[in-house]
């Protein structure tokens, strides 16, 4: 019990540290500037009027999805052209920025697929 319990606790701790790192590593000022482009379509309030909400997501799924658009593994041409020239650092900055916000309206339904 003591041994495996300790490992489990460590694993949880490690996961929390990783998540916190992702949030911290993302450059907030860079994220803020880059995010101004996104809010033309994705509302900061989290409201859905035909374009999905992107606020309050866990950084890792946010990063995975933007990377998929960049690598053209996801279809939408609008998002592909938005993501085309992003560096990993820029994607992390965006994940940190939007991840740190809470939606004020609409449903929070982050998709991870």
């Amino acid at each position: 019990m003591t041994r495996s319990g300790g490992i489990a606790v460590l694993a949880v701790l490690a996961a929390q540290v990783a998540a916190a790192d992702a949030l911290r590593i993302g450059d907030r000022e860079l994220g803020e500037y880059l995010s101004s482009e996104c809010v033309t379509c994705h509302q900061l309030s989290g409201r859905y009027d035909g374009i999905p909400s992107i606020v309050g997501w866990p950084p890792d799924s946010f990063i995975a999805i933007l990377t998929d658009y960049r690598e053209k593994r996801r279809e939408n041409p609008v998002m592909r052209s938005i993501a085309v020239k992003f560096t990993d650092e820029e994607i992390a900055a965006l994940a940190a920025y939007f991840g740190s916000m809470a939606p004020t309206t609409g449903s929070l339904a982050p998709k991870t697929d």
Partner: protein
Amino acid sequence: MTELTRRRFTAGALAATGILAAPAVARGKGKPRLVVIGGGPAGATVAKYVAKDSQGAIDVTMVEPLASFTTCFHSNLFLGGFKGWEQITHPYKLASYGVTHVRQMATGIDRDKREVTLADGTKLAYDRLVVAPGIDLKFDSVPGWSEAAAEVMPHAWKPGPQMQLLKAQLDALEDGATIVMVAPPNPYRCPPGPYERASCMAHVLKAKGHTQSRIVIIDPKDRFSKMAAFQEGWQKHYPGMIEWMDPKMHGGLKSVDPAAMTVTTDLETIKADLVNVIPAQMAGRIAREAGLVNETGYCPIDATNMRSKLDPNIYVLGDAAIAGAMPKSAFAANSQAKVVAMMVRGELAGARTFPARYANTCWSVIETDDTIKVGGRYEAKDGAIAEVEGFVSKPGEDAATRRQTSEENIGWYSGITADIFG
């Protein structure tokens, strides 16, 4: 008074921490001043973002006579009956970010003194000026037409009563009517706009059960934005109703006659029931009078930051600017505004700046659940704004794609209007 005290305190605190690191532009005492002429997608977005992100360190004044702004974008949806007037009209809610909205026209810019004169004679000093007046119409570019003639043959290419006039004329048509649209030469506001408009007009006629009415487009261009997808859509939804004529077919527009309601080309004289004249365009008057335009009638800018090539204290953006590969659209104006806001904060408040990124997407409604799009991402390259990646809807796309594109268009409108006005 409370406001003043808070602002002084903020400025003082910022100066103490060294954030206010732009002594060269601090004119006299007080905070650095940004004046923005025009409260459209370009100007209002700059004003909001500078005020919001500088948190009181920069004094932001927006000069715009209107109290609420009716958007040209989605005005074709108004024309088509998809949206009401109130859905495309937005009161400014920028005061909460710290923007001072002066409801007047700017009548002059003294670039040496760095002062803007307003219609009532007031002068506003600036450290940086943003000029975003949009376009003016060239009323003399179509023989026989004039500003007065636009009361009979509307342009509806600026928001306001002209759009309501065009809609009233359209709604009054009986079956068998002939509509003539005179399309504009490049470069003009919203490249796909005339063709979306023709689609929305056809939607109204079709919905009223017209089988004999037709829409003739007299175009000075031999091709247009999203042409293949538009023409396929017209054939599909409105077979035989929309007839597009390029210069090879009509031989050139000769004149229009508002009294006789005729349009004459080299080929023929058409008697019409509704004539929509969309004339040639140029940068708004204030930009021309301040000497910010070149021989094209629009304002040359530095592609890396939208700064006027003719005055380092002035930024020009939106429809008035020469933005290279970017079209004159609200999306583009809003995108450029974020670059300008960042650069202004960099200059006046020492904020960090990053390389400019520009983007655009223009959606166009062909019919209910059938919307197409064109867009791209842009960067400064060899002195101009160039496209780095682009896309356009293709003929033959499935219904699900077109329906999703329709939803995006509605979602985008909510997003961008919240971003600009409130």
